[in-house]
């Protein structure tokens, strides 16, 4: 799939970034991830709403990735800074995840922006919302959606936003 980092890709990337990587498989059911812009503490809510299990947690010096795979086959990754803030989320799978949950406080503004974009739009295609405080992108088609969102002000210094994927 488009933006899903396979384990090997993730390893390559992190080693390229010259950071220590810790891979922990399961055992993290009490601390997974949270909605975009939220704190690490509210992580469990996501797992329940997405009916997903934490597949793995990947850590570096500056951020942690919590990856959850819902039983529907859609995977959500949440990017958490060292201060505990979810600065980015990414998803891929046959159906769109619950964006109200994944985008958290940003969801109403996302829908408002997407509706405004519809009025200007000239046809169907991938979605790209560049709001003053957040970015949301989604591409693909039924059975294969790929999306991501991030809050630039929360992205740790020195981290490229292309890493959220």
């Amino acid at each position, binding site marked *: 799939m488009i933006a899903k980092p396979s384990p090997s890709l993730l390893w390559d990337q992190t080693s390229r970034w010259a950071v220590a990587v810790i891979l922990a498989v399961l055992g993290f059911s009490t601390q997974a991830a949270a909605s975009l812009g939220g704190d690490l503490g509210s992580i469990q809510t996501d797992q329940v709403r997405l009916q997903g299990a934490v597949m793995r947690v990947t850590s570096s010096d500056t951020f942690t990735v919590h990856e959850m795979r819902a039983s529907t086959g859609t995977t959500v990754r949440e990017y958490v800074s060292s201060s505990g803030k979810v600065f980015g989320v990414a998803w891929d799978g*046959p159906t769109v995840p619950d964006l109200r949950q994944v985008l958290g406080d940003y969801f109403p503004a996302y829908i408002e922006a997407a509706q405004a974009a519809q009025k200007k739009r*000239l046809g*169907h*295609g*991938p979605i790209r919302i560049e709001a003053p405080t957040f970015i949301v992108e989604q591409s693909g088609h*039924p059975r294969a959606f790929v999306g991501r969102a991030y809050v630039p002000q929360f992205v740790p210094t020195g981290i490229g936003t292309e890493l959220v994927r």
Partner: protein
Amino acid sequence: MALKFFALAVFGTLVMNPECGTTPASTNVVAAPAQNVQPITVNSGPANNYANGLFTSVTVCMPGSASNCQTIDGVLVDTGSIGLRILSSALTLNLPQQTANGSPVVECNQFVDGFTWGPVQVADIAMAGERAGAVPIQVIGASGFSTIPASCTSTGPSEDTLDTLGANGVLGIGLFRQDCGPGCAVAGASNPGLYFTCSGSSCQPTAEGIAQQLQNPVWLFAKDNNGVIVELPAVSPLGAATVNGSLVFGIGTQANNAPGSAAVFTVDGQGTFTTVYQGQSYGGSFLDTGSNALYFLDSRTSGLPLCPDTADFYCPASSQSFSATHRGANGTTGAVPFGVANADTLLGNLSFSVFSLLAGPNPGSFDWGLPFFFGRNVLTAIESQNTPLGFGPYWAY
């Protein structure tokens, strides 16, 4: 208006100098009308605001009836989705409702840019002498189902009106037989919750059998049922007011749909293949008549600036040429030259609605939208259906 005048003046110059080489040579032959050939048109659509919208007319009938029928125009032809969906505002027939345990079945269909919500009803679908009987379709925005479950509105904005859909309906004739497939047929946590049963304003997700889901009508035809060929002529770099083409049913089933030497690009289970660009492989690529531009990569990777007023399209100072390579799951490769022009300039010509060089960003992948189809005959073979080039799903051109 100055911009529009300029564009028309340049176009006039090109027409007067046919040998200047900027008008692409059309290499494909578009099939003449026949029993299995459905006319298709690229125009501004029923909302009169569409750029690169591929439309056709679809006849729906009461199941089993040859006379109680309605032909609906302005239906978007979409190789990126599956199933016929009609706006309730465009439908006058009172079609039978699909039920499960006595309750009406309603679908929350996810497109990439929004959802459609509406009941599943049953119709015969007739096009170009072909007919599919008792097909589940979606009637978008039908009255009586105005309360949309939160799990549906949580997937994006609604596209339940002519203004938001830009079409009277969508004819999904892509690579698959059903819109969802086995995932929706099983109950429990793994069900993605696209289908619901409703009682009053209360709707609950339901398991929807394969045969009850929305169907690609083509595979239900009695003949010419293994796929479709979208045939559109080449389009001037400056665009065109409208172009006509053919949607041919069947692959290698008639004299007019022989696949010839088309190269076959098979896909993965999600219906995607790989595009190689500047040595990088981008999985998750697809061909889609329902996407209105070539959407690919991002500004940084493509070197193309976004338009000043919209992040949807690229706006290079002058037209640029690119080349990429398609690579099917079967290893077949093919070079694809394509071009990108300034979207503001193209779209500034308000008398045009067809643009071969309209492009925009799609970070990390290639969405080969309608411009890819100009000047080509593109085959879409349906999953598990046999063709002279092998079993679907695949694309070939």
